[in-house]
């Protein structure tokens, strides 16, 4: 067990990090992610016009984030970024619009564990008395990830396979409403399930009863997201890094950038046209030990040019991988750089992210 974001979390289960990681890539891994910060934001005065109510609640959150929240379709989830005035990232989060007609004027929000108090304070302040923020971090939140996740969940909720990636829906679990989102942070197809705390054990045991499912701890969660090239808040992105530096341009809405109506829009407008001093890259270690967070990155001449923000051994590739920031002139795929591990210079090469291809199910097969 290890402390993480104010929670005691298992680093690994009896299988161990390496096997848990590979099991998730081959079958399905079950993660307890109850430490994260799910919440609902509900418009107080609803008009009854679903689209108008969605626009009204989305407009309360949009001034804080870089994404198009007004434009969400019913049932759609979007990865977006909370920004500070300097265009740095306060947090990365997911915001969704419920599918049900009677749920319009409501947003589903999931933020990181370590940042949730600050995030929720920002959102609540922006909403004022026009919307109520209802935290759901007293609920159980589980992620089922991997190629067998959909078939496993289909046995629990028939029809769930028809959901597209980055959508969510409400399902019944022994008389309780649970929220099932097809998303995750491993690069695999998968789901995140929010259930009342008293249903947590039942859901966990029910999913684990499937022989294709193994419990997976924080260790493999980290190595899976690293292979998938996904940034970890507080490590690969923080209050100083901008979406463009971090390679998260997809999370900046073109409409929002044009109207420049969010914090740090000035910096982002400049960076979008190419004015960047550093960018996040993937690095494949060619020899030696894995470089961890904080390791210096040097050019061929030994000049320090950047720092590793996360790194480790990739079980899928069978070698060391890392992510870090370097000036754009060193960011081209194939550039030879060095990583300093315990005083030794080890050769590395810039590679495209993700290290391991994503396998999201964007368009599920029709039944």
């Amino acid at each position, binding site marked *: 067990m290890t402390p993480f974001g104010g929670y005691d979390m298992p680093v690994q289960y009896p299988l161990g*990090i390496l096997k848990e990681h590979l099991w998730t890539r081959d079958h399905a891994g079950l993660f307890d992610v109850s430490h994260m910060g799910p919440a609902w934001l509900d418009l107080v005065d609803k008009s009854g016009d679903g689209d108008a109510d969605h626009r009204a609640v989305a407009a309360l959150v949009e001034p804080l984030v870089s994404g198009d929240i007004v434009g969400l379709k019913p049932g759609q989830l979007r990865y977006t970024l909370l920004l500070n005035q300097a265009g740095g990232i306060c947090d990365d989060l997911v915001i969704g619009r419920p599918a049900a007609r009677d749920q319009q004027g409501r947003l589903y929000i999931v933020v990181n564990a370590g940042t949730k108090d600050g995030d929720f304070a920002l959102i609540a302040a922006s909403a004022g008395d026009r919307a109520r923020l209802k935290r759901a971090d007293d609920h159980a939140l589980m992620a089922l990830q991997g190629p067998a996740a959909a078939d496993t969940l289909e046995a629990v909720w028939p029809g769930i396979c028809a959901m597209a990636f980055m959508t969510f829906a409400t399902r019944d679990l022994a008389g309780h409403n649970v929220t099932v989102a097809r998303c995750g942070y491993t690069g695999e197809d998968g789901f995140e399930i929010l259930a009342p705390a008293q249903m947590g054990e039942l859901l966990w045991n029910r999913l684990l009863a499937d022989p294709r499912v193994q419990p997976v701890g924080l260790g493999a969660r980290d190595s899976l997201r690293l292979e998938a090239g996904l940034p970890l808040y507080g490590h690969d992105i923080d209050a100083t890094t901008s979406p463009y530096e971090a390679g998260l341009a997809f999370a900046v809405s073109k409409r929002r950038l044009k109207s420049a109506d969010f914090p740090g829009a000035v910096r982002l407008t400049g960076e979008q046209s190419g004015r960047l001093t550093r960018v996040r890259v993937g690095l494949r270690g060619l020899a030696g030990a894995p470089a961890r967070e904080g390791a210096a990155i040097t050019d061929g001449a030994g000049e320090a040019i950047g720092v590793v923000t996360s790194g480790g051994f990739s079980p899928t590739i069978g070698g060391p991988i890392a992510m870090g920031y370097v000036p754009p002139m060193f960011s081209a795929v194939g550039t030879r750089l060095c990583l300093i591990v315990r005083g030794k210079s080890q050769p590395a090469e810039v590679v495209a992210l993700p290290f391991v291809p994503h396998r999201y199910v964007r368009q599920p097969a029709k039944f």
Partner: protein
Amino acid sequence: MRFSKDHEWVELADDIATIGITAYAAQQLGDVVFVELPAVGKTVTAGEEMAVVESVKAASDVFAPISGIVTHANDALSDNPQTVNDAPEHAGWFVKVQVSDPRQVEVMMDRAAYEAYLATL
């Protein structure tokens, strides 16, 4: 075979000591993915860093349980670091060291004493 409180084992044959980490240490480290060994000819000193072992969790220093000169390093570990987990007290040995004073080994814990020590952790 003798054992240190830092969870290394030493097996002495004449004046050559084979050194590795114990099954307990390997289990605590988790899956080993990289081992950095000293070069042959290097002098190692008891209590000082001798090697580095990386698991999927973290990097850990391995301290020399005795002093001497490295005569062999287990190069097979660079291709198969997992051997440290599979056979920590056999094929997963780290180095062979020519010891300056064999009595260094005799004063270390025997298996019964080491197991009694583990029970206190």
